């Protein structure tokens, strides 16, 4: 009888060890997968682009860009586009800035 109880006790220990081991293993896998999720870069596109340095020559004047990506360009007809080409030449995509031209009215504004 004592021998039978001893065997039952050992079986219970083994079952407990197996269950405990599986629990620990599950916990380790869970923690690894969760830490993988948390380490991911949230990403997102920055809304601040390369700062444009002010530039001036005889044909046009480009202001330095401000914190909101505003730029002012002073130039006559034809030279406005040349000022934009200057920005592109400096690897600045004009699409990323809010560009205002001084002393200028868009002739197509009248058509709506």
């Amino acid at each position: 009888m004592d021998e039978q109880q001893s065997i039952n006790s050992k079986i219970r220990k083994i079952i407990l060890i197996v269950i405990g081991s599986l629990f620990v293993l599950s916990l380790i896998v869970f923690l690894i997968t969760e830490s993988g999720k948390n380490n991911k870069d949230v990403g997102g596109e920055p809304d601040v682009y390369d700062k444009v340095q002010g530039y001036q020559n005889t044909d046009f004047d480009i202001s330095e860009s401000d914190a909101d990506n505003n730029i002012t360009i002073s130039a006559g007809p034809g030279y406005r586009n040349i000022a934009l080409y200057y920005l592109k030449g400096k690897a600045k995509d004009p699409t990323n800035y809010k560009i205002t031209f001084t002393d200028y009215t868009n002739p197509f504004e009248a058509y709506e």
Partner: protein
Amino acid sequence: MNKNKLIALIFLAVVIIGGGGIWYYFSSIHKVSISLADGSSVNLFQIVDGNYKKVKTLSKSTAISLGKGNYCARPVDDKYSDKPECVIVDNKDAVLNISPDYSTDYLSTLLETEFVNIHAIIIAKYSPLIDNYSLAKGQLFKKGDWYGTTLSEVTGPSRLGDNYRIILKKINGIWTVAAKPQLVFSRYDYKDIPIEILSAVNTMI
């Protein structure tokens, strides 16, 4: 160590290793729902060590089981851009929506039948001012439903003119001005127009 203890230890090791293996296998397989635009077929690749390893060809929307990894789909037909659409299969089910744009060559072919109609619409909308401008042939984008071109001011030899840009979108088969002529388009002013189109039109000469 007696025989019973040895058997118990081996049993324990088998259970732990086997259980871990089964756990790892099922935790690494996930369902990926792939939505494919009508009429297009794609080759699905797994990226392994920087190399494309083909998984299968898909010709309709489906859901497949994939192991953890990076997967990309590329259109089979030359009509579509070969830009890949990718998904990372990690710890959960994923979705991959594939709606490829047309290829540059196919867009150029489409433009031949579209640009006369588009130019007629621009001329009608901005007449008579448009008489002072020269319209370039322009370019179609995406699925041929976006168009951009330049309007160059025609001036005498003593004066430079301004170059304007315009973007149109085809809605229900009708071309409509999406961005009226401007010297330059800012992403802040045209949030409904894809940035890559704004940027491409801004770089047109």
